[in-house]
């Protein structure tokens, strides 16, 4: 299906190709990941080198009413076979017809407003091998029809093929002690499996200082509903599992409003399982909080921002670590020519006192180089707690990218 879509997109593009050269851009990057302690599993390593590239192509016709966009991503990792992977992040054609906009091909969309968890954002699968923060997404085959009216924007999606989540391989790190085997077939607890056609609808608008969205999704949950053991050690403990994917209906709301320098945000979803062992059950999840920005806090030009978000879920613990958690972060933006920024914060589970910490910093050098550094820590990882697998996995990551 994906090939057919891609083929028709290229076909369309070729059909209307006048002799205008498109525009190439993108980046190549090198990455170092270093861990402070020896791994839980001796098959893992203490340092990892990796390189990635993402060439991008863009071409537009008729004053921007017809666009072709491509983003091809590939990463090579020194040890992790799963992290050595490629993805068509984008290969889509978009046409504008008055107030209507039609997109066909592989694409990405983002829904939502919060910073520390993206609950309503369900169209694209997470490319989890890229980073533990889950911000990287896989390209999703889609036909999207969008209409921008005075009363808001309506988006309708047909999603004809499911992308499975990526997970770190045996030699990958950090990862749970039990390896998620993505080379073996995943389990779909319903008939259509990976070829199931998902549907989604979204309405979004703003009124003055209020910004809001309503969304509905019917299809395969991007998050596995369970993991099924396929390999065991001598004591009968599972050593490898495969993900189980289920059908869901998910209704979501998201909104934000400004009060002075404060931005208040909310996202909530109600998920109903339509297949498998959970069939008929519901879960409610929400994330709510604020962002406050102190503009020019040193009396100069830099900004200091505070993000506080509370995560709630009525689902059981295995499904999400965001069940009763508080995320707090501070963002320092220098507003200098090099766009220097530092973001640091904690996600703390109120019940178990388990905490995940992070520092992310970035700075541009010259016109083309971008340096990014990350530190991730796991605290309160004693046996029996949710992040026990990650007890030795504090790490630093440095990325140097050349953009062209």
């Amino acid at each position: 299906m994906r090939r057919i879509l891609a083929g028709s997109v290229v076909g369309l593009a070729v059909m209307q190709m006048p002799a205008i050269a498109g525009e190439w851009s993108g980046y190549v990057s090198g990455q170092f990941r270093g861990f402070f302690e020896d791994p839980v599993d001796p098959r893992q390593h203490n340092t990892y080198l990796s390189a990635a590239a993402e060439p991008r192509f863009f071409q537009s016709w008729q004053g921007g009413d017809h666009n072709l966009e491509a983003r091809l991503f590939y990463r090579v990792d020194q040890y992790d076979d799963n992290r050595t992977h490629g993805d068509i992040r984008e290969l889509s054609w978009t046409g504008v017809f008055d107030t209507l906009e039609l997109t066909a091909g592989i694409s990405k969309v983002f829904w939502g407003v919060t910073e520390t968890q993206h609950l309503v954002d369900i169209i694209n699968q997470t490319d989890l091998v890229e980073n533990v923060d889950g911000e990287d997404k896989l390209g999703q085959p889609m036909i999207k029809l969008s209409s921008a009216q005075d009363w808001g924007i309506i988006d309708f999606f047909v999603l004809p093929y499911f992308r499975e989540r990526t997970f770190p391989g045996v030699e990958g790190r950090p990862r749970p002690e039990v390896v998620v085997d993505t080379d073996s077939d995943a389990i779909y607890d319903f008939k259509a499996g990976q070829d199931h056609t998902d549907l989604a609808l979204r309405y979004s608008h703003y009124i003055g200082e209020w910004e809001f969205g309503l969304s509905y999704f019917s299809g395969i949950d991007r998050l596995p509903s369970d993991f099924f053991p396929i390999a065991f050690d001598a004591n009968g403990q599972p050593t490898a599992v495969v993900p189980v994917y289920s059908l869901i209906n998910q209704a979501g709301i998201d909104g934000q409003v400004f009060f002075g320098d404060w931005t208040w945000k909310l996202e909530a979803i109600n998920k109903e399982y339509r297949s498998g062992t959970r069939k008929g059950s519901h879960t409610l999840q929400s994330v709510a909080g604020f962002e406050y920005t102190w503009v020019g806090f040193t009396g100069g030009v830099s900004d200091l921002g505070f993000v506080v978000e509370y995560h709630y879920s009525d689902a059981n613990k295995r499904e999400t670590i965001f069940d009763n958690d508080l995320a707090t972060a501070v963002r320092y933006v220098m507003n200098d020519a090099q766009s220097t920024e530092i973001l640091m914060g904690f996600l703390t589970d109120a019940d178990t006192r388990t905490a995940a910490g992070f520092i992310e910093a970035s700075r541009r050098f010259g016109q083309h180089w971008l340096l990014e550094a990350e530190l991730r820590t796991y605290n309160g990882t004693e046996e029996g707690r949710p992040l026990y697998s990650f007890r030795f996995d504090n790490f630093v990551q440095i990325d140097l990218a050349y953009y062209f």
Partner: protein
Amino acid sequence: MNISMLRSSLAVIALSLLPFSLLAQTAEEKGLAIAVEADKRDEGFGDSTANMTMELRNKQGDTSIRYIRIKTLEIIGDGDKSMSIFDEPADVKGTAFLTFSHAVKPDEQWLYLPALKRVKRINSKNKSGPFMGSEFAYEDIASQEVEKYTYKYLRDETLDGIDCYVIERYPAYEHSGYTRQVAWINKAEYRPEKIVFYDRKNTLLKTLTYDGYQQYLDKYWRADQMNMENHQTGKSTTLTWRDYQFKTGLNDRDFNKNSLKRAR
């Protein structure tokens, strides 16, 4: 043109019909009248597109370049709608701002982040922060509406051989980084030649000079170059404008969240 602008223009007309009352015109009234006339002379441009190069220089003379494309739609009776699209630096290529500006109430502003494909509403109340690390604050590059300031005429002065009105203006909106600005307005063409900015402590902060004015459609003056010098940090930023086009046929549909996502 909204009601208060209409009222002030009516006031100007009324004053011109009554030459004797001109004697009684206060410095505030004269300052406002100059601002209203300047605004009137730029009315009716419809829409415009332009390419802008932004050169940032620090005290040591190191430079950093940004390329930005700007589309503007004139909204009669309110602030303009605009879209700014970044071409360079390469890591922010495709990043775009959509702004619906207003006279006194806060602008509506959205930021598009192409890597995440995320449109983010920006809290634009506080416009005193720098635009992309430059010496221009958001409030400096925002659409200039008459009601954004109160005015006071100071004196007539010749600036580099150009006869100018010197007026002082005081931000009427909240969270400005300035107590006042002193503007040299060309008497013949009612366009700014120089603006001096004073910070919240009323200390000299920045000087903006306009160079290479060109007239478009026999009416609208646009400077080819705008240079902002920060006296407190020694940094400066030069904006160089190219390829100005007017009445290109842009409309409201080119300024919404969907068109922001398509902007390249």
